């Protein structure tokens, strides 16, 4: 575990060897509900970092914090050594160009073709000549195996294909950090295998940092270098997937082995069962 008592300034000046994404002592609450309470986690270059946790632990909120869509109520979020909270809109947008994000359902722009979806960031941010742009887009589509689908409409894509197009779009600006939000949800085994392999190969060939937010323990454990398990607004365990599996913390054990009851209870808290059934006063 990193030294959480270190002053925040050290996170801001992280150099070449420092983490790509650095979350230190972050607390966040919304509407009186505390989502994070002193969260710490880091993602390093060349590594796949898995962030796991039961539903409702704020995994998506974490991604929004990382992208600067929301600001923490305490603590610091630094990406590429820059404190996200200190950036204005322009700075944030400049930073986001170096980050690729894969949304849960792909979030493709429905009024554009597959090709134009992948070309979208290039058209918005660069003034590349058309032939060069075309080649770049086709290369990214080739990387996800969908060069043949370039002219399709997004409505004609299956869930797995849509996610691969979104992945091609996420890497078209050659990001240094790739963030995946629940990339395995609702995929058949073949598509899931494809996405797993793509996450792994993109991470290795591009030499980037990958952050995968998921509750799919078995699949991500096959490729993750380092895992963080969130529960109750904190990191309750960290390490390699094997280390997590062997951990003796009850909540970690419950989550990693998919036990229906434990620290995360099966029953929503309720009054006495017997009394409610027999009492008859409701």
């Amino acid at each position, binding site marked *: 575990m990193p030294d959480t008592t270190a002053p925040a300034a050290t996170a801001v000046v992280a150099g070449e060897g420092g983490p790509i994404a650095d979350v230190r002592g972050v607390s966040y609450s919304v509407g009186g509900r505390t989502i994070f309470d002193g969260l710490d986690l880091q993602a390093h270059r060349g590594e796949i970092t898995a962030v796991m946790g039961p539903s409702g632990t704020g995994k998506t909120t974490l991604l929004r914090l990382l*992208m600067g*869509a929301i600001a923490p109520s305490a603590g610091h979020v630094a990406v590429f050594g820059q404190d996200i909270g200190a950036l204005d809109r322009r700075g*944030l*947008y*400049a930073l*986001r*160009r170096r*980050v690729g*994000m894969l*949304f*849960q*359902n792909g*979030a*493709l*722009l*429905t009024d554009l073709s597959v090709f134009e979806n992948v070309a*979208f*960031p290039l058209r*918005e*941010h660069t003034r590349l000549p058309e032939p060069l742009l075309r080649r770049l887009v086709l290369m990214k589509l080739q990387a996800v195996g969908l060069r043949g689908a370039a002219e399709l409409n997004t409505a004609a894509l299956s869930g797995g294909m849509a996610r691969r197009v*979104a992945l091609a*779009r996420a890497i078209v*600006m050659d990001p240094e950090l790739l963030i995946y939000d629940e990339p395995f949800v609702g995929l058949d085994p073949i598509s899931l295998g494809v996405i797993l392999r793509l996450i792994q190969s993109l991470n290795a060939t591009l030499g980037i940092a990958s952050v995968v937010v998921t509750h799919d323990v078995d699949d991500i454990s096959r490729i993750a270098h380092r895992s963080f398990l969130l529960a109750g607004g904190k990191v309750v365990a960290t390490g390699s997937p094997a280390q997590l599996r062997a951990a003796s913390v009850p909540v970690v054990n419950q989550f990693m082995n998919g036990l229906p009851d434990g620290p995360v209870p099966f029953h929503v808290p309720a009054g006495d069962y017997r009394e409610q059934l027999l009492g008859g006063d409701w």
Partner: protein
Amino acid sequence: MSHSRVTDTFVKIGRVALFLARIGGQCLPALRRPRLVIAQIYNAGARSLIIVMLCGLFVGMVLALQGYDLLQRFGSESALGSAAALGLLKELGPVITALLFAGRAGTSLASEIGLMRATDQLNAMEMMAVDPVRHVVVPRFLGGIIAVPLLTAIFDAIGIFGAQLVGVGLVGVESGSFWSQMQSFVTLSDVNQGIIKSLCFGTACSLMAVYEGFHAEPTAEGVGRATTRTVVSSAILTLLLDYMLTAAYLGS
């Protein structure tokens, strides 16, 4: 925290105003790439053309019938041409076109943007460092503002044609007096008044549509509610503005 309906209304007015300011700041960058705006003029304008033309024809025809019935009581049925033209140009054209626009184009704008919100497309743009206000909202807003006065002009022209059809063809007003009365009594300022009104209504209807769509709750019901609210607030705003503009013109 409990808000009364009154404070809710004022809060919303403030939010809409802030949103308008945000749109205003992105108008110039959006105009520098007019391709998106032109696509939206087509989307909101050309696709509302049939309904606007049909309604214009019927409104003009009804206006001729009612106008003739009224004017002949004073023995001045020859004024039908100018009465119909003034009614259409200053009042019926801008108002009815705006209401039709809100129903036909405003709802589809709101649900389109709302669906983009619900399917994370707007968030995805944010994450790709593309401002969705500039890329999605502003072209639709400007497209609406440009389309409504154009539609109003078409509505007016077809309405006058419909009035002539019924007034001259059916109830027997003399064609010469129909047109000459119109020419001598309708002034340029009457035409301008209609154009100003339709610009204001177009702005109001487009603003409400993009605001409601952009701030829709990201669920199926949320999108439906946003669509409904678009029509309601567009209609209220249009008629409120109409009264205020008319009062201002007649007062000056």
